[in-house]
């Protein structure tokens, strides 16, 4: 578990907001190239690693998205505060007073500006939209103008940290946890002789529409795909029927938009290999890359396995490493048994 934790922390330490995944991609390539032909490719900035038999009848795609939410600089105001917009579905309630990393010409530390309570006149229960917030670098305007440009990305400045037992917290676990699962899965498969062609796709831009998965699936032309994302972990305010227990194993997605046979096969494999799992039942689409991959070209049979995660889209995301390991084992088992 220690190795898995270190891998996850390396992945989470590399910035990769949607559309600016380069650093995260580089880190992932370094990890994946040990196991297969790996390259960062395409106009979208995806990473693809291919393994197995290139001429095999079965073509399996494993997907996890590489990007994470953050902020994007829109400009610098007259007093030198950096103005921002969301890059993905940022939860504005966790922004005020947060230490941030601004990826400008240099890496800068800023704080999300926050009006002191005495000026709020009872407005303490409101949080303004991100577009009305600003990141404070504490520097004069001309200095800020030299260092920061529109389009630069801003991320929460938090170090990945181990919590009790096998739980960890970091920003961007959505979906570096999934990326980590696929790298671990590649490692598990690296000593196996595969009867399929396997493409591991780390797709860009999921948080802003999933364009990386659309183009990546088109390029790989799989006939089946397994998508790994994170999903809601049980926590206060989140209904049990809408969430999965942390440490309860992968959440196998069941939905009209997913292929029922693969879904059932995953559950069968989990039972056979004594991998704990839980179901995540959805009434339509899944809100993940599985939605678009499933209708790529003439259609792809798709399944979804999710890692339960608390505090999604905040810098305080929490997962259990055992869930990552079990998800990797389940996917590896599926690929191994492919005939």
């Amino acid at each position: 578990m220690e190795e898995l934790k270190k891998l996850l922390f390396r992945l989470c330490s590399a910035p990769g907001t949607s559309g600016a995944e380069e650093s995260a991609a580089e880190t992932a390539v370094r990890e994946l190239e040990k196991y297969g032909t790996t390259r960062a490719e395409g106009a979208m900035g995806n990473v693809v690693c291919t393994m197995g038999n290139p001429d095999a009848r079965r073509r399996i795609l494993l997907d996890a998205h590489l990007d994470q939410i953050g902020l994007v600089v829109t400009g610098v105001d007259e007093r030198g505060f950096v103005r921002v917009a969301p890059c993905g579905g940022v939860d504005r309630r966790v922004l005020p007073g947060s230490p941030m990393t601004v990826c400008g010409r240099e890496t800068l530390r800023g704080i999300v500006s926050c009006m002191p309570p005495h000026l709020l006149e009872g407005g303490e229960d409101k949080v303004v939209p991100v577009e009305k917030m600003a990141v404070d670098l504490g520097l004069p305007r001309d200095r800020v103008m030299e260092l920061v440009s529109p389009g630069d990305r801003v991320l929460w400045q938090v170090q990945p940290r181990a919590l009790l037992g096998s739980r960890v917290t970091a920003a961007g676990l959505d979906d570096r946890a999934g990326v980590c699962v696929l790298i671990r899965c590649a490692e598990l498969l690296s000593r196996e002789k595969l009867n399929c062609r396997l493409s591991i796709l780390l797709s860009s831009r999921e948080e802003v529409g999933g364009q990386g998965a659309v183009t990546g699936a088109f390029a790989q032309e799989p006939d089946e795909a397994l998508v790994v994302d994170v999903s809601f972990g049980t926590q206060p305010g989140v209904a049990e029927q809408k969430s999965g227990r942390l440490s309860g194993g992968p959440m196998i997605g069941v939905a009209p938009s997913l292929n029922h046979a693969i879904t059932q096969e995953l559950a069968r494999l989990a039972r056979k290999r004594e991998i704990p799992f839980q179901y995540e039942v959805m009434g339509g689409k899944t809100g993940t890359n599985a939605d678009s991959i499933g209708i790529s070209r003439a259609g792809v049979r798709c399944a979804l396995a999710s890692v339960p995660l608390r505090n999604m889209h905040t810098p305080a995301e929490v997962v259990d490493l055992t869930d990552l390991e079990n998800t990797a084992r389940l996917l590896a088992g599926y690929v191994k048994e492919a005939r």
Partner: protein
Amino acid sequence: MMADLELLRHLCSLRGVSGREEEVFDAIRKEVSPYADKVETDALGNLIVCQKGRKRAPVRLMLSAHMDEVGLIVTTVTEDGLLKFSCVGGIDRRVLPGKCVLVEGKIPGVIGVKPIHLLEKEELGKAVPPDDLTIDIGARDRGEALKHVSPGDVAAFDSGFDCSRGVVTGRALDDRAGCAILIDLLKREPEYDRTVVFCVQEEVGLRGSATAAYSVNPQAAVVVEATTAADVADVEERKQVCRVGGGPVVSFMDRRTIYDKEYYRLAFRTAQENGIPCQAKQAVAGGNDAGSIHASRSGVRTAAVSLACRYLHSAAGLISEEDFHNTEKLVEILADRIAGGEPRP
């Protein structure tokens, strides 16, 4: 010679939630002991440092800064192993969700919130109610949590320190910055005898300074603090209170104290004569240890010299390195002038 930022970095790395200032106390005692003539403590845990100067002081002066910081205190542990908490000191509820904390200085945790995807319409755009917040330390259930944490344990913000480009950002700058300045002053022999106190429990009602002022029994006091700079984004100039980079902030009045008029003027005069930028705190807001000190025993003539600090009482404050040095300069000269009996009638 000025206080170096490494000392400030070290002080800011220590935990000292009100009532639990021991770690800060020990570090400061170690730092100042070689320069002190007498180091004492009292029932509450204040650190009282007496230092002889080259001359006996015509006016008994006490300098003070507080060691404690705002934080959280664990009230109960839920069945799921999450920690419910109350705030220690005034924390703006908007700055809590999603932050990293350290429980009892050793157990990492995060303050969780329900994901944005699952919010009801009426929850959008609203700060998370503090009662909905919990600290997640990764425990699987109550049993596991209780092996590591007990009700009454305190948690403090866990965020880094940075001092590049002349901007200092970090946790607990309120009032470790004041502590760092007074520690550094103690390393130089003053003109006149003086007592420097590092107080506990400022954030929960100016309590440590009350007992310290009683035992020291000074005639005059200078409080060195960090005060709210509201020169943040979208605040118009007249509401900014004070400005980061504008020099030390001198108070005429806040919600706890009306300051000694002559000392207030003396502070500005001293700044001007020494080429130190200086600004008035332009709002009657907040309060600090002066509140209890100035009304101690039969009354103490009191001044407050503060650092303009943005985002006070949150995960990371922001001050200017230049202000930090200028505040030290002003406090040093002002202290000797007050102890020397100025302003003379």
